Structures are given as C-alpha cells and as structure tokens.
C-alpha cells in the first residue's frame, strides 16, 4: 500500500519553512550546511537556494558520506557499500553547522554523521534539520528542525523523492510492506 503524504507544493512550502526557522536562530553565528548523501545534500542545497533568493546571502553546502562510520558494518544487507567522497570545502572549526537528512528514523545514521563530522574539526554548534521525523528512535538524538512528523511502524517505509535525485516529481510517500497486510 502506497500513500502520498506530500506533493511538490507541500515540499516547497516545507523547505521555505525550514529555511525560515534555521535563520531565525543564532543570527550572529557563522553558519555552514552539511548534507548527508544523497538526499540530505539535495535538501541542504534547496534550503540554501531559498535563502539565497530571499536574503541574497550564500550559505556554503558540504556533503558527508557516512558509510565508514556506520555501526552495522559487516552485517548482511550492507556487505558492499559503494563509498562516496565527502566534500567539506570549508573549515568547520568554530562554525555553526546544520546537518541535513531527508528522514530521521532510528537515529543511527545521525550518530554516525556526528562522529564523521567531528573528525573534520570542532564546530561551535551542530544542529539537525530533516524533512520527515518518522519516530521509532533507537538512540537519543532529536532533530532541531523538521517539517513533518509521522507516526509509523517498523514495517512501513517513508520515501522522500526529489526531482534532482530520482527523475520524478518531489514527493513524500508512506509504503506499507506486504507482511503487515497479511498479518
């Protein structure tokens, strides 16, 4: 079963909302954006583009691949991760860093991202912005900014699609797996 939660317009509004709340905080601090590959990078770039349009200010966007920091290396299903380069073309020491991912779920990805990020330096502050918080955390990590909060079960998937990455219209969909229907 597939249910569309957000379409292109809602996503655009959501990104506008994220941008507003991010710049409303700590206006005096030097801020940089870091997106987690792949869709976190797209989200960060969209927020940066919105801010460029509204405020004529550039916010640098870096990318982080956290495959080497995952806590499930060697487990089945993740046997051959294709590694990507991380590109942080700026110093993060003393900066306010906003991390972006499209969905927060167990929190383990963000834990790995925090560990990866601090290997690049010591930011003054790290915050987390996501499009969807689907609950079911396994680690005490919460987003500072989110657009949508969904109550989900472990048998569901939340999929965020961006036109840049997925060759289709922007959307957030909730998919239920078969096993739940049979149950």
């Amino acid at each position: 079963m597939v249910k569309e939660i957000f379409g292109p317009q809602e996503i655009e509004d959501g990104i506008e909302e994220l941008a507003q709340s991010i710049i409303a905080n700590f206006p005096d601090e030097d801020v940089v954006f870091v997106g987690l590959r792949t869709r976190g990078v797209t989200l960060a770039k969209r927020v940066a583009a919105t801010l460029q349009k509204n405020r004529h200010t550039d916010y640098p966007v870096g990318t982080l691949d956290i495959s080497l920091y995952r806590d499930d290396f060697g487990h089945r299903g993740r046997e051959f991760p294709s590694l990507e380069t991380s590109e942080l073309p700026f110093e993060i020491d003393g900066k306010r860093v906003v991390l972006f991912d499209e969905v927060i779920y167990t929190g383990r990805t963000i834990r790995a991202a925090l560990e990866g990020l601090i290997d690049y330096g010591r930011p003054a502050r790290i915050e987390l912005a996501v499009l969807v918080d689907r609950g079911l955390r396994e680690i005490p990590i919460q987003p500072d900014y989110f657009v949508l909060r969904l109550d989900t079960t472990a048998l569901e998937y939340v999929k965020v699609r961006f036109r840049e990455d997925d060759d289709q219209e922007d959307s957030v969909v909730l998919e239920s797996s078969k096993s739940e229907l049979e149950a």
Partner: protein
Amino acid sequence: MSELKPRKDLLDIESLDLSEIEYVLSNAVPFKQLFQRSVKKVPTLRGKTVLNLFYEPSTRTSSSFEVAAHRLSADVTNFTVSSSSVVKGESLLDTIETLQAMRSDYIVIRHKAAGVPGIVAQHTKASVVNAGDGFHAHPTQALLDAMTVREVFPEHQGRRVVIVGDILHSRVARSTSTLFHKLGIEVAYFGPGTLVPAERHDFLRRLMSWEEVFDWKPDVIYLLRVQLERQEGAFFPSIAEYHKMYGLNSLRLDRLRQMGSWLMHPGPVNRGVEITDEAMRYERSLISTQVENGIAVRMAVLHWLKPENGVDS
C-alpha cells in the same frame, strides 16, 4: 553493487572479475580523500585484528598495510620472520594453527615461495591478503598502479604502458600487466633478453630498444627495480652495463619529457641503476603518488574482504 559475491581472500589478480576491480578502485578514492583531513582515521574496522606476516624483508609494503589498517581503526600485529618461531623450525602449518588460535580477522602475508598465501588462506577463517609471493603475484601493487594510472588518465582504455627491466623475477610485472590488460590498458615489455620471459607474450608486446619504446609512444614508463638480491644467475654482465642499456638517463628522460609521458616505479629505487638522480626529480614522476595510493587501495581491500569469523557466520 550488491551483485558482488563475498570474497574471503585476495591472492592474485587473475581470479578477480571486472566488477570487483571496479569496486575496489572506486572505493579507494574516498579513502584517499581522508588523508587530507587532520584526523585520517575512520572507525570502520574497530575491534578487528590485522596480522602482518612477512617472511621476506619489506619495509614499504608492510608499513603501507600497517598504516592502512590503523586508518581503519584495526589493531595490527607485526610478525616478522627474524623474530618469529619460524627460525626455531616451526612448520608453516603449525604457524597457521597458532595464528588461527589468535583469531585474527585479516592476515597479510609475504613469502619467498609462490603459493604460500593460498595455502594459508585454505587453512584459516581469516581473510588472507597476498603481499607478494615469490615470482607469482603482488595484487595490491597492481591495484595501486591501476589507481595511479586512472588518476592521470580518467579515460584509461587504450593508454600505453611500457614496463622496463627485470620482468622475469618480477611479481609486480606479472600482476600489474595482468590487471592493466583486464582494464584495457596496452602493455609492452622492454628489458634484457635473459630477463624477459618468453611465454608471456600472448597479450603483451615486446620492445627491443629505447628507440622502439619511444616510437610506440607510451603514456607511462614503468621502471622495475633491478633486484640485486636475485642476480645470482648472471643475467646481465654488470650494473654499469645495465644502466647504460636500460637505465633512465638524461637523454632518455628528455625524450620522455617531449612526449609528456609519466614515470612510475614500485620502489625502492636503485639510483644509478635503473634510474638517475635527475630522473627521480622528473616533474611527471608518479612514484610518491603510488605510495599514497598504496595505502588507499589497501584500505579499500581490507574494507572489501569478508573474513569467515565475521558477525554473521
């Protein structure tokens, strides 16, 4: 990439398929990028053990593996022949049994006899990486060479590499030329008649003089080390003679410079034998790049191999 089959050991280049080669070479790129950071380490192999088992002297390869393992946060034990019980007469299989009891996850092995890493691999659950066995193979050297050529030539297909020197005794020549051939890079050999094997000419061109080398217009000149320690058989009259005939001197260097060719060497170099001081300073030398890429490729190899004593087995 999920279509890759789990592989326990890396023993040679011949048994690798193209998707595996591509996987290792493309993963090595982000590993190399880590070296630019102040923290060069990632936690991927935390709690795993790498055993460096070197039956032949090697500083460069063993330290390259050691650095690679450290940068993946693995623990490393160095087991060298002069300090091990091998000198006390322990057999290879008894040594393996001891190693098995130590529960290493990865064993990196160099041995003067071809095939020893393969035997060790059959008798242990650890992943075995061949770091050079006799005249047989040196697969991580080949992978780092391929990475180096691909950095300079992203369109590497059809590029030309001439390997110069002692082909016969060189596991580097064997593994590297096999890998280059698999990747569609053309390979030629040039060296003393006594040091170029006759049976390896199936896909390899043999060049007979420096003139033929220059006429072939190679993109890379790959000099091999003259293995002074293996010259018991009098394969060439003298070091001076070798240098005169096959060494990269100023005149030959000028020709390379005109062609824009790159220079590679697996190290360590013998200055005044296969290469001159001047050639060591050549602006298109990739020798240091090879060392750096060696660490990245070895990280990618350790990251790729799956020991049998892993979480799920």
